[in-house]
């Protein structure tokens, strides 16, 4: 409603103002053009310093035989060419095998986690669109996981997942009587699900927040019109809400994907330095390869490979979604 109502009356006004506005940039000339770049400069410099330089150093390290013998002055580490890369992707040897397994685990984990985060966040946001008693309270409550410091939240989960004294087994086994004996959550195969639960718990409020913001932009009268035409809630969600949220969702899914794929804090705090095999996410795997076995060269090579993978995925994703948007714009 607001869009159409505002657009029409301003149109002539804009047209009238054109000559006057056109004069403005001419008057301040070059300064006006330089200003945005000047404002961007500090951020660019910091970006260079904080991200780009370490990144280039990391790439350089990946071509060196960097072990504890050279860590003090890594420039002196002998050049090893592509050795680190061949070790990392030799899928017949344990290092490559473990990397591949960790990569596949991370892919599955990311798909499940992002999917569930999105689903929960969207459902909660749509549910909280209606005005009812206690809406404010629920909105605040839903954001709690997002507001808590990661470390504190995840360590609490680690306590709850303990086999003998944890709350999870207390409820599942002692009270509900599920399973013959209490399950392990922090070691063995279940660790994957434990990690997924914590990841979704931690991640969905961001989806909720983003989708809720996106929902504010959908004109209410579209729903009213649809309701008049006899569309039910599901039809409204399918034909109005979801299409309108498209651009929001594109960014949301991309950001969640990158965060989840690279998540280091959650597995590190939950499992410590050595994650169980079933929950060996790639970031912790690379950390272990670099900092626990002091094989910084191979660790860097793994990081570069991960980076290339994420770049390709992100690139393809952006290409697909922007193409989709162009056709839908027409």
């Amino acid at each position, binding site marked *: 409603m607001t869009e159409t109502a505002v657009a029409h009356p301003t149109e002539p006004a804009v047209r009238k103002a054109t000559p006057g506005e056109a004069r403005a940039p001419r008057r301040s000339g070059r300064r006006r053009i330089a200003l945005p770049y000047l404002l961007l400069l500090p951020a660019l410099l910091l970006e260079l310093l904080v991200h780009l330089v*370490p990144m280039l*150093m990391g790439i350089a390290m990946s071509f060196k035989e960097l072990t*504890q*013998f050279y860590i*003090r002055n890594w420039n002196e580490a002998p050049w090893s060419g592509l050795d680190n890369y061949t070790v990392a992707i030799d899928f017949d040897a*344990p290092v490559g095998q473990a990397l591949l397994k960790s990569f596949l685990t991370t892919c599955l984990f990311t798909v499940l986690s992002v999917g569930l985060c999105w689903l929960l966040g969207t459902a909660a946001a749509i549910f909280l669109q209606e005005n009812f008693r206690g809406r404010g309270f629920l909105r605040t409550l839903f954001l709690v996981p997002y507001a808590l410091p990661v470390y504190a939240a995840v360590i609490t989960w680690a306590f709850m997942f303990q086999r003998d004294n944890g709350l999870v087994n207390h409820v599942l086994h002692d009270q509900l009587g599920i399973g013959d004996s209490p399950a392990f959550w922090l070691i063995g195969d279940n660790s994957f699900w434990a990690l997924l639960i914590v990841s979704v718990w931690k991640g969905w409020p961001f989806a909720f927040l983003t989708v809720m913001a996106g929902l504010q932009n959908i004109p209410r009268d579209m729903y009213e019109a649809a309701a008049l035409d006899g569309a039910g809630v599901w039809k409204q969600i399918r034909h109005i809400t979801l299409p309108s949220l498209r651009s929001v969702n594109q960014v949301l899914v991309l950001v969640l994907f*990158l965060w989840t794929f690279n998540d280091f804090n959650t597995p590190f705090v939950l499992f410590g330095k*050595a994650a169980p095999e079933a929950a060996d996410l790639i970031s912790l795997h690379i950390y272990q390869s670099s900092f626990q076995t002091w094989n910084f060269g191979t660790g860097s090579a793994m990081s*570069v490979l991960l980076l290339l993978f994420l770049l390709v995925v992100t*690139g393809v994703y952006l290409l697909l979604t922007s193409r989709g948007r162009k056709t839908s714009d027409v």
Partner: protein
Amino acid sequence: MRRIRAAVTGAVSLSLAFTATACGGGEGSESSPKTLTYWASNQGASLEVDKKVLQPELDQFEKETGIKVKLEVIPWSDLLNRILTATTSGQGPDILNIGNTWSASLQSTGALLPWDAKNLEAIGGKDRFVDSALGSTGVPGKDPAAVPLYSMAYALYYNKQMFKDAGIAEPPTTWDEVIAAGKKLSKDGKAGIGVEGSNLSNNIHQVFVLGKQHGADFFTADGKPDFTSDGAVAAVKQYIDLMAAQKIVAPGNAEYAQNQSLSDFAKNKTGMVLWQTPQQTFSSQGMGPEEWGVVPAPVPSGKPGQGAQTNSMVAGINLAVFKNTKNLDGALKFVKYMTSDEEQIVLNKAYGSVPPVKSAQKDPGFGAPSLAVIRDTLANSAAALPQVPEESQFETVVGTAVKELFADAAAGRPVTTESVKARLEKAQQQMPKK
């Protein structure tokens, strides 16, 4: 615009991917000769306890020399990474504590001051220290990278009341007796012996000693990893079998890494535990010194000694000086002070450890039976972990293999010689190639 956003997203993903390789900065080292920075490892029940123990001694040092020592107590989980970071950046403390098993690994980075004859002379000479403690200060044949500060050894602690209830007259001295006693103890939700299945370092300590008992060293004489020898496989299997085959370890111990096995012991849930100087933890958990007994850690047969009768690793903490300290003179003075008889007695008493300094060991305070066991073990039947540069990696990869095997055992999966060997094979191939 879209391209810019793609670029920004790309940059963000790049930077995220690189968090694993980027290094943080360390603490600034002091250039003033009147101050020193000291990183202490966590020895007491908490970081606060350590500060309370150490600060008065540091104040005393300041009074004597006019040098102020800035203390930072660092938890074990962070210590090695902090040292590595300081090594990379060159911004470290002047003096630091290291786990003595890391000596050779950290020596190989070249960041620590070598204790050549001249430096050793400044602190009273090599002969002040017990031999076994000196064995964990760096690669043999090289100048030590650190000096011993506190010594510890493993011993078998047993719960007197639980032994009495189970009708066990004598505490076990051999593995067969441990298993027999363990089986008597393992009933009504109680277990025979506790392990810390997810604690990588503890796993290494235990399988290293068992390895010695099977004649395996985990490294060849020329320092190459040798994790899959028959002896090494048998040692690891024997340790896992305490849970998998003998069933005298509660399955829950597979996920223990925060000394939960000591809590179980103090709460009368576990009858025995193999540990290094746990008395403070026992008493902080409400277990009085009269409630537990201590005997030397078990051996295959007979009495503890060398070789197959080795029953402990040489555990302990060393004191090292960062090579690029701006206050070498002050650092040497500090090391001399910390290894003096008086300080050794005060500090080792506070931490329940044994002084690695011969003359301080003579203090009657270290004659109590619980400490005498440790002292004798260190003197006669303890062996230093392999002093090779790759020791720290060995802890990680083999410690993880043992953790995974415990997870298998806890889940009821079979643990066989083949499955143990496969895990160790994988661990060995994860070691950096030279």
